[in-house]
């Protein structure tokens, strides 16, 4: 009897392993992202450079020549791993799994991404009932074609707002960022703000 149970368990483990291998080896249907420019961080050198102050904060597009000469080193990184290591977290978001990527400054970007299609989420019933609002801070990865490839929750008030913001961002479309004449994938920080007026 014990041998039978052990065989069944062994068989289950083998099946799970096989399934895992299959899913890992499934080729990505999406196009390769290529170099990712991280627009969520700024190196101290860049921050102190006066040229950076020309960036207008919200959905601004940099003029083509705005790239300062004292630029940080924008290193290219081939990033197939970003697709492969996505995982769910409790906020209903996908993490990039790319923390090991070299940080690339945004100062070489000649045009920031711009929202082409904005999706406004329904205010979640759970949050409305609880009277909760607040900003959901997200990091999103926009590919060279302006598609949102990954969404990660940095912080949020919960009560369904985080999940709602993630779902909305996944349906956003952007005009891609440009580095010179070439579009480039970027990682940006996006604030999806829920405001509830309580009367």
């Amino acid at each position, binding site marked *: 009897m014990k041998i039978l149970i052990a065989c069944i368990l062994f068989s289950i483990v083998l099946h799970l392993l096989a399934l895992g291998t299959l899913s890992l080896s499934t080729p990505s249907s999406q196009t390769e992202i290529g170099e990712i420019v991280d627009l969520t961080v700024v190196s101290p050198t860049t*921050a102190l450079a006066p040229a950076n102050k020309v960036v207008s904060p919200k959905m601004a597009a940099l003029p083509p020549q705005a790239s300062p000469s004292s630029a940080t080193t924008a290193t290219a990184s081939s990033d197939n791993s970003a697709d492969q290591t996505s995982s769910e977290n409790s906020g209903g978001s996908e993490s990039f799994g790319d923390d090991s990527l070299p940080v690339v400054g945004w100062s070489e970007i000649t045009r920031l991404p711009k929202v082409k299609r904005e999706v406004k*989420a329904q*205010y979640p*019933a759970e949050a409305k009932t609880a*009277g909760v609002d607040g900003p959901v801070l997200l990091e999103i990865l926009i590919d060279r074609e302006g598609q949102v490839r990954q969404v990660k929750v940095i912080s949020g008030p919960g009560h369904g707002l985080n999940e709602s913001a993630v779902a909305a961002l996944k349906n956003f479309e952007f005009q891609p960022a440009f580095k010179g004449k070439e579009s480039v994938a970027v990682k940006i*920080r996006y604030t999806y*703000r829920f*405001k509830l*007026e309580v*009367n």
Partner: protein
Amino acid sequence: MKYSVLLASLLVATVASAQEAIPSFETVVEDVVFNTSNKVIIDEKTIKESRAPNITSLLSSQANVTVVSTAFQPNSIFIRGGDSSHVMIIVDGVPFYDASTIQRTFNLNSLDIKSVRRIEIIKGGQTVLYGGQALSGVIKIDTIPQEFKTKTGLQVQAGTQNFRDVTAVHTEALDETHAFLMRGHGSWKDSRSPVEDSDKSYAQNNWNGDAAYAWKGSVEGHVKGSFLQDLNNSPGSDRASNRIYDTEGFETYTRQTAASAHLKFNDIAWEPRLAMSMQNSLRKYDWPKTTPPDVNNPTGTDQRYGANLKTARVDFTPYKGEQLSVNGGLSYIYEDFVYRNKGTETVNKFSEQRGLFLKTDYTWTPGFSLAVGGRLENWDDQDPVSTYQLGLALFERTKLEVASGYKIPSLFQLFSSYGNPDLKTEKATQYSLMQEWAVSEKQNLSVTLFYAEFTDLLQITGSFPTMKYNNVSKSKTRGVDVTYTLRPFENGTLIATYGYQEPRDIDNDRWLLRRPLVNGSLKYLHTLEKHTGSLEFIGAGTRTDNGFQSAPTVLPGYVTTNAAYSYAWTPDRTVFTRLNNLTNNRYQETYSYLADGFNASVGAEFWF
């Protein structure tokens, strides 16, 4: 050392500078909800626009909560027949009260209203989640901001009765998810004597401050330290006639220092939330012997009430799905109480409460849900007390709730000079039915019918000096609570509340003390570009109180009128005025204790 500070400042400035340079993108989703007769949320915008002088004033005008003052208890809150001892106050996620007080309460107005981001009032029994103190409701006060932005604010006010008030705030955002928060507040006033026909005034000073470090992310939370203190001159209370009278040199001092931590682990299974707090309280009553000797103070007064409160609570969400969610947790409360009279310690006691709770919410289809909860609480070596809560929501807008509850006697009631160590817990069963009507997008009406039965109600019996607390009576309160909101214009809001209740002391065949049979408020707030104005009426009907020589008496009802106006010169510069009690109605809040008459203030707010 100097250079270290300079370097640290430079680093902080550098980080802040870097933060500004990061491009940010934003989408805003807006919606509107209406408060109901069961739950009221007062958000930051409303708090600011009301320019209310304190938290209790805001509760009276927005939440249909009656608040009264006496010489020795600065405010008592009455919700649905329960008093302050049946309302749990939670500040930034932890219970907040002075464990040496009769009702496990504290002067809510000692908190600076300008530091408050959000107030949530939940009416009705909430003992399953919050323990015995929440027999009639919960008041949750949040001060930690939702967003971290480096900014400095200053607000100054001056007014009648030599009123001066200063608040300074600074938030140092290290980045979008980490920040230091600091705030200090001072208030000084020479309040008019509450004694009839008196032209005397009493100095009332309040200082408070807090500092916190808050962060967000997969583990989010805050650590916070705070202090508050009140130093007031006070009138006396005549033991024989039960009337208050003017005094010289009678000082009352209250101080509370507190530290708390709140942690939420978002990425761990069951999403554990941990809240811990420590509070130390001191109340001092100093009244030197007078010449000629005062009959109520023949040998002078030198009393010290000290207390510690330590709380810990862990919440879990073992399951959360589309339809079903399960929440549970453990709570622990430690209280101690020391009383010294003229330097001699006569009481030194402590108490522990341990709770275990579980609540399940099931939504079988949108608008239809069932909530079932239970709690088991153990108090010192007493047998565990159990309590339950049932909630049924039908068609989204009909809510039926049944809750049992209990209240553990306070250490004062058990061990003070009037104490009785044999006291049992108060027990209660409450029923409520709320119906909400969304009349239109601009109008909302909600009506709650409620009924509460209390047994073993704790009351003081006998007369001075042989008074003693006892589980003496049984009470029944039935009533109706109504909230109506109308938005006649895009920027105008009218809020009307009305409550009628019959808080009956069955054993003594009379109304419970100090609870009005009728209370209500009417408030209109309008914003026009840079101008914001509000006008509010707050009223209460007759109340029964202990009158002359402690015989029952009926206090007449009252209506007070307040107004506020503010002008936002620029987004960072605002001037405002607040006029309280426009008709100078000096009604009796409690027997022989007159409310403050007309008073006004002007102020300015700056952000840098």
